[in-house]
């Protein structure tokens, strides 16, 4: 019986455990089935897969494309002319449940508001995407990138330079070509 049983009780919590079931005696046919019959079947299964297409991905060398709504590393968008979209309004920081965003505004030579300091602490960030949702300027997005481990804590503080997309946006032709070529293999 797979019944839950209370085995100890304190004032605050209850610990539950499953009752153990007695193992039934397999018998002679049972023994033969699990040895003489099962082993060749196992070998057949394994060798069958040698000639099939593999399902694992050799991760560091090949990457699986992420889902379109995957929430990876943040990036800050720009307008077509290259100006930053972010006006340092502070709403993303206000929405952030992990308190991961820090910013200081400034005024540019036209008197417009933009960020002097904009930092996301990726160790604090829980990748909930609330910042993206809060942003009124469509400036911050959570991208597809998930490989950003480094060996220092400071390396996880992403400042504005690291977060902003490069301008002009690089034509990713090399990468595209490589994908095409890879299809043949």
């Amino acid at each position, binding site marked *: 019986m797979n019944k839950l049983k209370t085995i100890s009780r304190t004032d605050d919590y209850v610990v539950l455990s499953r009752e153990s079931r007695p193992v039934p005696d397999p018998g002679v046919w049972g023994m033969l089935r699990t040895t003489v019959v099962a082993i060749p079947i196992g070998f057949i299964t394994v060798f069958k897969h040698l000639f099939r297409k593999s399902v694992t991905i050799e991760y560091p060398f090949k990457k699986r494309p992420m889902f379109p709504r995957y929430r990876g590393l943040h990036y800050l968008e720009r307008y077509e002319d290259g100006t930053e979209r972010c*006006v*340092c*309004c*502070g*709403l993303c920081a*206000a929405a952030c449940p992990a308190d991961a965003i820090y910013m*200081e*505004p*400034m*005024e540019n030579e*036209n*008197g*417009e*508001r933009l960020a002097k300091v904009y930092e996301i602490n990726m160790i604090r960030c829980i990748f909930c995407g609330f910042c993206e949702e809060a942003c*009124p*300027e469509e400036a911050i997005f959570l991208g597809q990138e998930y490989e950003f481990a480094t060996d220092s804590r400071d390396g996880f503080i992403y400042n504005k330079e690291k977060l902003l997309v490069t301008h002009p946006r690089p034509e990713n032709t090399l990468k595209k070509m490589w994908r095409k070529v890879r299809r043949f293999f």
Partner: protein
Amino acid sequence: MSDTATKDQKTTPAVEMVSLTIDGRPISVKKGATVLDACRQENIPVPTFCWHPKLRSVGACRMCYVEIEKFPKLMVSCATEAMNDMVVLTDSEKCREGRKAIIEFILLDHPLDCPTCDKGGECDLQDNAFEYGLSDDTRFAFRKARKIRDKNSTFDDLQIGPEMVRNQNRCILCYKCVRANEEAFGEYDIGAYQRGHNTEIDAAPGGQVASLYSGNLVEICPVGALTSSDWRYKIRVWNTQTVPSIDPYHADGANLTLWKDATKVHRATSRMNDDTDDGWISDIARYGYQIATSERRIKAPLVNKNGAMVEVSWEEALGVISRRFKEVKESQGAPCLAGVVSPNLDLKTLHAFNKLFRGALGSNNVDYRSDYSNLPTDADSTYGFMASRSFSIDAVASSDVIFVVGSNLIREHPNVHLKTRRAIFEKLSWLYTANPIVTKSADCSTDEMIYNLGTDEVFLNGVTLSLIQQGLADKEVDTGKIETLLIPNTLEKCAETCGVSVERINECAKRLANSKSPTLIAGELVSNSIARENIAKSFYNVALLLGIVQGKRGQAAVLAKAANSKGAEALGLFPEISATQTATLKNQFQSFPELAGANWDAMLSGAQGEDIKAMLIFGANPVQTGADYNHIKKSLESLDFLVVADLKETPTTALADVVLPLSSFAEYDGSFTNLEGRTQDFCAGMKRIGASLPGYEALNRIAQSLGFSLYADLSSLQDEVSELLDSYNAPERKHFLMESHFQAPPAPQENSLPLFAGDALHHFGHWTEMCHSLLEFNPEAALEISADLASRLDIQTGDSVRVLCDRGDKGNKGEKLILKALVSDILEGDTLLASHNFAAKPVNCFTSRDSRVSYVRIEKIEKQ
């Protein structure tokens, strides 16, 4: 002009109440109150934009809609008088619909730039739109108009004042800014131009919004149309916390709120207190918090080592101080030590200072009046008596005749100035001002009487004589021997000497005598004059004849100048304290020096002689703001040892052997006693800068290094302060007319002009030089000059002017300074005003310790 009697009938109806029902609640309010007042009295929320508690309603925004039974349409509650048996609904479906429509109309032409707007987070429009207006189904869809000056720019903000930025797109035309400026401040530098939806809020053509109260306009703007350059893009308001604070400069004691985050204070705003400030604060109070964050602060103690000031630790500085103080005390005796403290420091510091000198060091030489000269030496001076009269700032707003003598009120007491304006605006009171110079009050006073320089007491004697001659004087006062008491002793002679006609003096006297609750104010031009005792006696005579000092009606006082002058007086920080004060102090300090102390005058002359050898100057900067630069400098230079504690380096710290860093008011908890005697607490908003310490802590460390302890814990120090304040009684005396003899000051030389050294409009004392926002208004020492004189000498604002002093008989003969001219639209005649707030230009080199008026010559420097 109507007669006083008819006016009184008009203004004193019996308090009648009306009762009405709001949201089912029965409410009774004073007759004449609006429906909105009734709602606010019961804490029923009604959204508003254009209404302000201290301004008249105009009903411009229509956000405050309420439904009133039997009225076919929604009514604006802020402009509807409450009537008996009204039935009001504030939250009905119809109301909400109406308010939603208003928000819809406003948002038709309001940009949705909350992300870049400084008001975001504290914006009435945001809040009300969230509450009433969130819907996508607007009935109108067209492009929003963009009101900009420069078509090529992407940017709509326009700097319309030194600290004010306007974005016309965001303006909802509530006219609060324009109304407050005119109604409350009497300034006309901001206005609404054009008509309809083209209306623009702008500075007057060719001008800037630069009045002393300009920051309030930003504060009351319900949206982000007016924002301040200081707070611009600094920090979001939801990332700040607020702490209560007090104006650390003026004696008015305006209440402030400091907005801080974990690192520092970011701005100061008002905190409405009807007793002192009505929610309006001067820009000096608003931007004065910047002394806390200024780059110019001293961060560590400095010790003079072979002529160079070297940063050292507190221990080392204290070691030097204790060694030298002990040396002086042992070789020359305790009376060779003297202490000067600034009345802009908090009560605990002042008391600790007193305790260090009187209790620990055993010297009675303490003073807080280092800005003045020729101080009174006896405990019961008439000046002291008049300066300690009880005074209520709020009562100014309800008094029917206000009489100001010898005070540039707006510069000395910005909030008292506003209360006088309120009295005139609301109660149609009479304001009489009598000054040697024209002041801002001239534009609202019934009569601005300009008397000749140095004839303050003659004018007041004229009023005294006029009161007696017209038979208006208090009957219980013996006026028999008046001819022998006053010089000159007839009204005609007085009028001739002071230059104000007999009719005007008579008119003023009559109005004062007929008043129910007169307010008599004497200001800094009296306190700062070397004839202050004589003027105070004349002032006392007037107040006596009106029955004020006997407590029959009204109020009269010489107003204290600095934030804590009253506190310093109550704590006894001057040598000639009264017997009761001495008794309380003796009780608190283990020992008390017997020898009478030297006041500031005596300290200076003592320092030049052999009497004073070492001095501790705490927060004060007499070399810059005291009278007679050369005399003070020479005296301080001849000291053996000088310790100066201050926030920044000043001309006084330049003479010091040891300089100690003090913390500003935003860095510790303390309290100030304002000119009414009201003690108000302020709280720390940020960590102390560098190694700076609050005054009381620095003093305790000095005491400890000398082997004493000033306090075990702060609460015991606070208890001692409270005990002193509670036991303080203003001096009393038997009332009789005082004698006041006028001595004509020597006639000026040909071509010389009288000069007053004092505060610039946007500065106070020597600390505000650190506030970058105030420097936007008054960047450097200016020579204010009347338009008339300027055109005669062909001087324009911004011209360099050489100021020469060739009359000074003492050290200041031949002094010269180059100042920037500032043509004032208020000043008249030949009088010059020079600002003493800038260390680079010691304009007090022209003033002298023994003459009432300083004369200078000026010449324009031609540009090459």
